[in-house]
């Protein structure tokens, strides 16, 4: 039996964040192992501890997520979930209703995003697929065509159709898969892989193919709203902005208008 399943804790590896999740037992723990199956890892050297406190009854919180940072600590209120975290100690406590599953993906995504931000990375509202061990990332708001592009990927491995982790790796940026899938469903989150980024395309749906290269300001302007984190806290917003400016200076980015046709990938190749 893998070590991840031998004791009470569940170990996950999401975009290089090694998580030790405690507090889930019985059905909840089984749900956790099933929901995050491709990301279940061995117990070696977990870096971040997340403790779940599940309550049978819990009132609703704010519908718009509220996230505040105070030095190295943060607080999150999101629907019926509440969390506190400590970025120095690499730990978080998540209180949530039992009915939401053992670990609500939307809450876990925010927690992971806070720890990722500390490490120079962020979660982007994007799909991504690999070709020749390089990642093409396709970013945009809901309805922009992220899942459509992922479905057109054919044999190319899909990292995600909804949430792509952008991580720093040596001297470059890489894209990593996440368990936070979109309308394509769980089939879009079956891999746990990462690869250097070839390019990022900000999507527009159209009837023809067209593209243009974006400058740094244009990239940051487009990417900022697509970073998965509430940004009303100035310290968090400043962190996101700083990472995005660096990212925009080092990764080629395009605005891509695309038609829903298989030629998409031929067109994309011409960009690079």
């Amino acid at each position, binding site marked *: 039996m893998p070590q991840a399943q031998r004791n009470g804790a569940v170990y996950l590896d999401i975009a290089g964040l090694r998580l030790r999740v405690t507090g889930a037992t019985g059905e909840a723990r089984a749900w956790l192992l099933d929901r995050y199956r491709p990301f279940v890892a061995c117990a070696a050297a977990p870096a971040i501890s997340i403790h779940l406190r599940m309550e049978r009854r819990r009132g609703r919180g704010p519908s718009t997520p509220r996230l505040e940072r105070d030095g190295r600590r943060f607080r999150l209120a999101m629907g019926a979930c509440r969390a506190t975290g400590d970025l120095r100690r690499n730990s978080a406590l998540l209180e949530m209703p039992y009915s939401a599953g053992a670990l609500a993906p939307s809450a876990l995504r925010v927690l992971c995003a806070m720890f990722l931000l500390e490490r120079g990375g962020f979660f982007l509202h994007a799909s991504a697929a690999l070709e020749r061990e390089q990642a093409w990332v396709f970013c945009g708001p809901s309805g922009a065509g992220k899942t459509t592009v992922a479905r057109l990927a054919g044999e190319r491995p899909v990292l995600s159709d909804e949430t792509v982790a952008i991580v720093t790796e040596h001297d470059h940026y890489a894209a990593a898969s996440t368990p936070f899938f979109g309308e394509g469903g769980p089939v879009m989150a079956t891999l746990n892989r990462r690869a250097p980024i070839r390019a990022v395309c900000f999507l527009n749906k159209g009837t023809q193919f067209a593209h243009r290269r974006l400058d740094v300001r244009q990239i940051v302007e487009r990417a900022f709203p697509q970073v998965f984190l509430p940004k009303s806290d100035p310290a968090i917003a400043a962190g996101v902005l*700083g990472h995005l400016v660096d990212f925009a200076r080092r990764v080629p980015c395009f605005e891509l208008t695309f038609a829903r046709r298989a030629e998409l990938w031929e067109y994309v190749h011409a960009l690079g």
Partner: protein
Amino acid sequence: MPSAERYPARRHVAWRAIDTEALVVDPKAGLLYPLNSVAARIWELCDGARTVEAIIDIVAEEFDAPRATITADTNEFLEALAASNLIRLDDKPQRPASRPEGREA
């Protein structure tokens, strides 16, 4: 129109200079406002140590436009920033930071 003797001071919001332009986060909405080079320069000068009049003097010196146009545009921009709660218009000067927080070292 803000009084020429007031001291515009940026509130504690995230912003970043990109070459001569800038991006400012509206914390209430979590949205990003792009500023062109003139607006970015005015924003940077809103350090609480300069009056509106002093800011207009600097902008008029650095940019090639009639002073009347610069005065009107600066006042309009400062008014918009104050209405969005991105700056305060103080009666007294503050000590400026050694380096604006949105500038890279």
